[in-house]
């Protein structure tokens, strides 16, 4: 069996690195909110456009407020998505509500778009007793079963082959659903990326691989991450369809994802989308980018703010006004602040949550360990202010 389809034969040795085969960037919106010449009017109606836009404003407000809270010592850790809102929310908006989303960690916008409430965000961030994750993971490790948003896992890229598997299950179920998986251009260097894309192409599963190429993996610029022109050309190695979009252009992102979804669901063709964007903020609240990049560089990208670009477009269509902008900003600021105040006062998860969910049932050994812990806390209640109250009384 020949292992390649009949290919051309040459008799002089020719090396190629494919550089002449460039993958263009798909853009619809100019920064001033008008459409590029030749660009199609987008498939977005007003309601959906406003839902996207409001979600963008929400995450921007959330990000600013929670970073401040982290600086005040109220929160241990935070990660912003500033600058990448269009890439994240524009793509999420092109999905069905019950398509599965498997995110990396910077995709709070996708979750907010699905309807995760401010309260739900806050409970996770403060790891209180109402956190679905039971206070076990660091802030921003959100998850929602009802919104089909897989709980975030810190190890990078692990969710990518999982998405391939998830989508394979969807294909067998024949329910017309697909999976989108988000990851950074840094995470795309992991072995799991290679596994995931290759398996998706071989097994023809309905999955959309959305790479947020935001220029950095913490301090590592993408030129030290890969020598190639971005992540997109890797698709050729798997014979997978790929499109590169301007990640700050919400209309381009939305349209590319909409089309990709159709290919995925209707033809079982996995698709890679590379969204070119920029991480405007620090990597996380623990990071300080001044050690590895210039303010000038950041300024260039601040000019390309995806929210402003969308706002210009909305206002151009008279779907949005300055007053509405002012109102929503103020309202969301207030809402975030008030919700935060409530969430941070809620008690931590119960002591039992230390041993539940390790297995479907608590094992005898874990019961024993929990009992020992309870006795211990009873002996030293002052040392365990969070939980001493829970064990007072009976031995």
């Amino acid at each position: 069996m020949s292992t390649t389809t009949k290919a051309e034969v040459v008799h002089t040795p020719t090396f190629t690195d494919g550089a002449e085969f460039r993958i263009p960037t798909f853009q619809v919106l100019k920064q001033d909110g008008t459409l590029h010449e030749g660009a199609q009017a987008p498939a977005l109606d007003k309601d959906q456009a406003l839902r996207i836009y409001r979600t963008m404003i929400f995450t921007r407000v959330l990000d600013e407020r929670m970073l401040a809270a982290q600086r005040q010592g109220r929160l241990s850790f935070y990660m912003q998505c500033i600058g990448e809102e269009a890439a994240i929310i524009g793509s999420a908006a092109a999905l069905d509500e019950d398509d599965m989303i498997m995110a990396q960690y910077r995709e709070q916008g996708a979750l907010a778009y699905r309807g995760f409430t401010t309260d739900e965000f806050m409970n996770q961030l403060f790891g209180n007793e109402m956190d679905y994750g039971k206070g076990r993971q660091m802030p921003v490790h959100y998850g929602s079963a009802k919104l089909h948003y897989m709980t975030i896992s810190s190890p990078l890229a692990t969710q990518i082959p999982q998405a391939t598997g998830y989508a394979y299950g969807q294909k067998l179920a024949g329910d017309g659903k697909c999976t989108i998986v988000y990851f950074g251009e840094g995470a795309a260097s992991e072995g799991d990326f290679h596994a995931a894309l290759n398996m998706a192409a071989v097994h023809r599963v309905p999955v959309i691989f959305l790479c947020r190429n935001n220029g950095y993996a913490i301090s590592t610029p993408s030129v030290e991450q890969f020598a190639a022109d971005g992540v997109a050309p890797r698709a050729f190695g798997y014979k997978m369809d790929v499109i590169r979009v301007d990640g700050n252009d919400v209309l381009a992102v939305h349209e590319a994802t909409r089309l990709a979804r159709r290919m995925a669901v209707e033809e079982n063709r996995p698709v890679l989308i590379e969204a070119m964007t920029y991480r405007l903020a620090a990597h996380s609240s623990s990071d300080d980018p001044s050690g590895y990049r210039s303010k000038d560089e950041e300024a260039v990208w601040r000019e390309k703010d995806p929210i402003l670009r969308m706002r210009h477009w909305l206002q151009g269509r008279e779907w949005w006004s300055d007053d509405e902008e002012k109102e929503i900003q103020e309202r969301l600021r207030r809402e975030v602040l008030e919700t935060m105040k409530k969430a941070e006062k809620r008690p931590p998860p119960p002591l039992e949550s230390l041993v539940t969910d390790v297995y479907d049932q608590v094992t005898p050994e874990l019961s024993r360990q929990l009992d020992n812990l309870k006795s211990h806390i009873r002996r030293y209640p002052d040392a365990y202010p969070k939980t001493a109250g829970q064990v007072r009384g009976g031995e």
Partner: protein
Amino acid sequence: MAKMNMLQAINNALDMAMAANDRVLCFGEDVGVFGGVFRATSNLQQKYGKDRCFNTPLVEQGIIGFANGLAAQGSVPVAEIQFADYIFPAFDQIVNESAKFRYRSGNLFDVGGLTIRAPYGGGIAGGLYHSQSPEAYFAHTPGLKIVVPRNPHQAKGLLLGAIHDPNPTLFFEPKRLYRASVGEVPEEDYRLPLGEAEVLKEGTDITLLGWGAQMEVIGQAVDLAEKEGISCEVIDLRTILPWDVNTVVESVLKTGRLVVSHEAPLTGGFASEISATIQERCFLYLESPIARVTGMDTPFPLALEKEYLPNHLKVFDAIRASVEF
């Protein structure tokens, strides 16, 4: 009942699980039309189609990543790793992902449907990379279950137990016994419980504990010991994690002596956990140190495999030393 070797029993279990539930899928390297390099998945593709039994590309981290996703989606994946020696590229997906999936999500999501099968162990002239017994590498990972069968009957019942258990389970198959171990196996669907050791033989002087292929070795040693008048109690742990502490404690409280044997190297092997726990629980009852009879602290050799392995004579020596202590 039918006479089956261990491969047939495993194949039969997979067949039964796939017949009963069409969300059960079997995949891995060469698992499809070929039926696996050991033929554990023979005929499953022919019977259930390419969608449910298939070859994957050659990438263990991908196989388990894919399986994790499938399990999260509600399918029941039974992934094969061709040799346990090649499970390590998937270590992150197993230890950081499968094991922690339910806990980290507060039970919103889980990969409980996942079973990972892999042939393990020495005695087949496999050298460093076709002989390892990696159970202890995983036994330090809360959230996983680890099961090792000793014969065809156990293999079928425990594999069906593992597939139906709502937790991610590693199922290590003693490949040395694949064809060598033959026995009566019920034809119907039956599930042996996970987390329960089995007392194979009662005795009063000393307790012998092991799992998988090592049970045969222990059996031979016990034969020698009983000839010398030593009454042995023999326990097959069957599930390495979470392990059945009580059954072992009960036995050692009675016999006062324990020998644990496994093929994996001594240092950090699972015998160390058993020994540490049993000396905590049975301290005042122990009449001699808990002994470990294991592989040496080296990679697995080839030419001197016989010298390396913890065979029945070494186990017998340990029994004698324990009794004569």
